[in-house]
Structure formats: structure tokens, C-alpha cells
């Protein structure tokens, strides 16, 4: 279990994929959204945000979201 608990707000998501860009670069050293551990799909009014199994809740994607669609809180055990 990672440092953070991550909350999502689909209504605020714009599909900018800044989260996927950041996650993939951090773990693969290449900007490759197809390798990200978070997956966002927006299509018209619909949106889905999900995390892959290998997401370690490091919270970096949250730092790159400019739209408050991702937020994080420190886990109790870590405080």
C-alpha cells in the first residue's frame, strides 16, 4: 500500500492525460500513456478513471492534474 489514498472526480476530468503522461514517464522514462498505471477515457459527456493493478499510490499523477479531478490524502499509517 502506497503513501496516498487517491480520490477521483470524473465530473472535473477533461481527459488531458497529464496524469498518464506523468505516471508513464516516472516509471518507464518515456512519455507513453499506454504504459501508465492510471487510465482515463473521456468521450463526450462520459468519463472513466481507473487504476491498474501495479499502481502503488505514489500520488505523482495527482500533482500533474490541473483540474482537481484527482486529489490525494495521506494514509493514516503514514502520518
Amino acid at each position, binding site marked *: 500500500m502506497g503513501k496516498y489514498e487517491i480520490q477521483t472526480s470524473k*465530473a472535473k*476530468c*477533461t*481527459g*488531458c*492525460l*497529464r496524469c498518464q*503522461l*506523468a505516471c*508513464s*514517464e516516472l516509471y*518507464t*522514462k*518515456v*512519455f*507513453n*500513456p*499506454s*504504459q501508465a498505471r492510471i487510465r482515463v*477515457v*473521456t*468521450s*463526450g*459527456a462520459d*468519463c472513466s478513471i481507473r487504476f491498474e493493478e501495479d499502481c502503488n499510490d505514489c500520488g505523482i499523477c495527482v500533482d*500533474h492534474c*490541473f*483540474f482537481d479531478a484527482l486529489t490525494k490524502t495521506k494514509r493514516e499509517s503514514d502520518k
Partner: protein
Amino acid sequence: MSVGGFADRVLHVDLTDGRIDKHPLDLDLAQRFIGGLGLTIKLAYDTILPGTDPLSPENPIVLGAGPLVGTNLPSTSRLYAVTKLPTSGTIGWCGSGGVNFGYLFKNAGYDHLIIKGRADRPVYLKIIDDEVEICDAAHLWGKGAEETSEALWMELGHPTGVMTMGQAGENLVPFSIAFIDRIATLGRGGLGAIMGAKNLKAIVVKGTRGIKVADRKRYKGLSEDFLQTIRSYPYLKEWQDLGLVKSFPMIPKETYYGMKKRRIACVSCPIGCKDVIEIPDGDFKGLVKCTSSVLNLYTPVLYGFKDHRESIRCMATIDQYGLDAFEFFGLMSFAKALADHGIIPPEQLDEEIATDSLASMEGWARKITYREGLGDILARGFKGILEEFGKEAETYAPPLVKGMQPYVGPGAALSWDLFGTMELGQVLDPRGPHVGASGSPTYFDRRPLEVFPRHLTRMGVPEEAFERILPGLNSPDQEEELRVGRLLKYSHAWFSILGSLGICARGAINRFYNASLCAQFYEAVTGIEMDVDQLRRRADRLWTLLRMANIREGLDQKAEALPHKWFSKPGFKRYTTEEPLGLQEGEEMIEDYYDEWGWERKTGIPSPQLLEKLGLKEN
């Protein structure tokens, strides 16, 4: 350090014989033209045979995405197309925010795509990383732009970048456009018809290869600081929330909030200017519309629609067909005037033309799209109507530039009257009356001239040019002046730099960038040495080559004459003093513009010395 940013390949597709080739990117050439827009212009210059008919198989569509596309630098998804456009008959740039298409195209492993020929049946081009296939599009032909995008997403899932056109493109209406990922428009001036002429319904792309950065450490330092600057911008939230609605009182905020479902941002963009709205009540309750800006949905309101819900419904129809709404409404107003004065004879009018009526406008959009009756004549655009109805019709025509209706000006739907770079740019952009490449501080009304130098530096204007753009700024005994023509050169150069890197040119984001930062980002991402001077030189090279491409097509200064109708009352006003602007003064601005590029002052032809200096002699 290896080269980063670029995907390193150019994809060639010939729809006539079905040949598909992947060539390595010529890095020397990429460096000379920066990449993105610049290299797209160069590839188009080398591919377009002079005198080509825009709707012939020989006219290529050249696409390109710059070296920053695919990174997480803010708003770097920009996609460009260069081709010979049927409305203006010129070789022009078409640009789009890029949405998902831009990064997916780069991730599939391509910087550019050159499409030639004509398929013998409706097809779409499918690019999935290395697999490139020309697929049958019989099931898509006849569908609207949005319907086609949805059908392709059903087939291929998300994420898939989709570029498509509607039935107007299929039927070769010269003012048909293409759509990127259903929400962004590409190619006012007829890209839809060019695709139609190729029997090419769509291009779809999926990519998983990734984009690497040459100097990660430097990149990290630079981008973190930059992101911080954007985060701390006091109006960021307001921009994200309202965007341009902020400055257009035509759309009451409560109405906007009442129908806003979501904002959409192109990949990597921290602003997000695109809208998804849903009509909350009335006859069209539940209609969901994606648009590059909610402002576009109000185009019919500018032409007399009373109910914004009807306006949105009308735009949904026009966008499905893939018509350029702005040109469509301009044309319909013109046709109405001709009908009112009996120039279009009543027997040709199978339906009333009422620019404030949903039923009438939807009806005419359909007739134009399917080229039925009078619709077939209207479908040929302003040029076609003037040919058909002769001299008499001219009196009622709006001011025209390269056969199209300008966005801005006396008699136009947007009646901004101060004559800044965007207004002048409408005659000097090779593609026709567009404002996107001509931004500058004159975007805002009556800015004091003291603030200009700061913006000029940001746009990469060399200091030695300040005195020419702003004579008298530093001499107390001389009256301050603004030379709009000279400034416009640097608007186009700055646009060229942003576009070639792959950065969105919209004011909301480009305000954060400056030329020096662009050079540093280019170096960090690609590993290729770059400074502001070199960027400037490359911008001069690529925009001058676009000029040469058009001169080769026979474009001359006459095609860039100011419409006389702009100068009959009430006309444009001077930016600085708000006094009426005279025709002669406008003409001097055009000469200044040519001169500032180093093109011949009267004719706008680049001199052999300049071509030599820019290394364009061999072209």
C-alpha cells in the same frame, strides 16, 4: 545524447495504388525547419506540383506534429495539415489543438503523413503503430462527422485518434471542414472536400511506442518551473472554468453553467478550452454537443437566432454535415439579400431563406450538402454565386478575401473595429481570411504602447526591430506610433515557432511561453542545439517558403488587396487613435509587412538574396 522528441518516421500513403511506405525522418531537414508546422510546409512544398487542382488526386494532404507533441509540456498536442485549399486556391496551413489524435499519431511512430492519390472506393486509413492499412469505408460513407467518429470508436475502442469529415466533404463542398476526435475542427477552406475527393472518409490512429526526451534532467528542471508559473497564474481557474465565455457577454454565465457537462482539454493542456454541453430543457432537451468552444454554438445567434437552444441544434446539424458554419451563415445572408432583391429568381427558391430560422437553415444546410437545386449553386461558395448571378450580385456580397468571408470587420459577424494584427492578418495569411496566426498584443483593445516591448520580447522579436514597429516610443519629441504591418510579421513568425514545436497557439496558453523558453525546451527535448536567433531564422525560412509555394501557384499582391468595402463607412479604425483608417494607410501596412520579412516591398516577392540567406535557393 540521442535525439528525442521526434518519432523519426514519415508515413507515405498513395491511395491510388495502395502503396504504403515508411521513410526515416530526414533529421537535417527537420532541424532546418524545426519540425511540426515548418517541416509540414517543407514536405508540402516538395510534394505539391505547381498548378495542381485542389480536388485532384495529385493534391497531397501533408500532416505533421512537432517534436514536443507527446511530451507533457503544456498544450503540446498541436496537429497541422498543409495542402492546396479549394476555397482560396492557395496553399495554406490548417491547424487543430490535436485533442488525442496528435499524441497518438506521434506514439504510433510518425512525425508526418503524406497522403496522395484517390482511392477507387470509400476508404479509411487505419494506423496502429507499425500496422498501416487502407480499409473499406462503405459502412461509413454517407454518415455525419460525429456519427463516423462514434462508429470508429465502437470498432476500435478508446483511445483512438479520429480525423474525419461529414457528407459535405463527400460531396466536395469547398467550404467543408474536417474534425479531430469529433470536437476540434481542422481545415476551414476545404480540407473536408479534399478528403472527399480522395474517397478518404477518415484517418484513425492508435500508438503505444512512447516519446522520449533527450535530456531528462534539464527537461525536468525547466518544466517544473514552468508548470509552477501556470499553477500560480491568478486567472487560471477562471480560464479553466469559463474560457472565452468570460469575454463574450452574448452567453450569460448562468446559461453556460446550466448546460455545461464537461470541459475537454487536448492531451497535456492545463487549460482546456473545449466544451461538452447538454441542452437542459425545451424541444431539444438532452441533446449533447461537443464543440471546440461553446462560442461556436452561438454562430447562428450572431445571424439572428433568438433561442440559443435552436442555435445549438442548428450547429449540431451543420457540424454533422461538416460544413464551415461561419462560411455557411455568411453565404446564406448573402443569398437572402440576393433573393430579397430578385437577383435569385423566385422560381429558383424552393424554400424561403431565413437566417433566423432553424427549419430554414437546417433545410439549406441539407440542400447545400447534398447539392440539391439552388443548394448546388450555393455549395460553390461566394465565388460560385458571383459567377452564377453576375455583376449585380456583387453589391450585396460581404467584403471578401481570397473568395471567403473574413471573420472580423465592418459588415462581418464579429464587428471588432480596431485594426490590429488579426484584422490585417486576414488578408495576409496565405490560407485566406483567418485570424489564428496573427495574434499579438493588439488582440486587446487600446493597450498602451509602453506594454508592447515586453510582449515583443516574449514573441522573439529582435530588439533592433522595436524602433520600426513602435517609432517614437523612446523619443519624447516624436509622436508614438504602432506599425501594424511590421508587427504582423512577428505574429506570423511567433506562430511559426509555436506551431513547429507543437505548441497550441491559443492566447490562453501561448501567453505563458516565450521564445527563449521555446528554444530551451526544444534543446532539452530533442537534444538539438537551439537558441532564439536560430529559431527566428528558421521561422523566417519556413514562412518565406510558404510564401514561395504560393507565388509558385500564381499568388500576387493583388490577391492580398484590402477589400474596398472595409473602407466604406463605417469602416475600420486605427488601433492607437480610433480615427478612421484609410485605404492607403492599410496598403502601406501591407508593404511594411512584406518589407519586414525582407520581401520586395511592392510585390511581396522574396528577393534572390533573401532566399540565398535563408538557404532556400535550391527550392
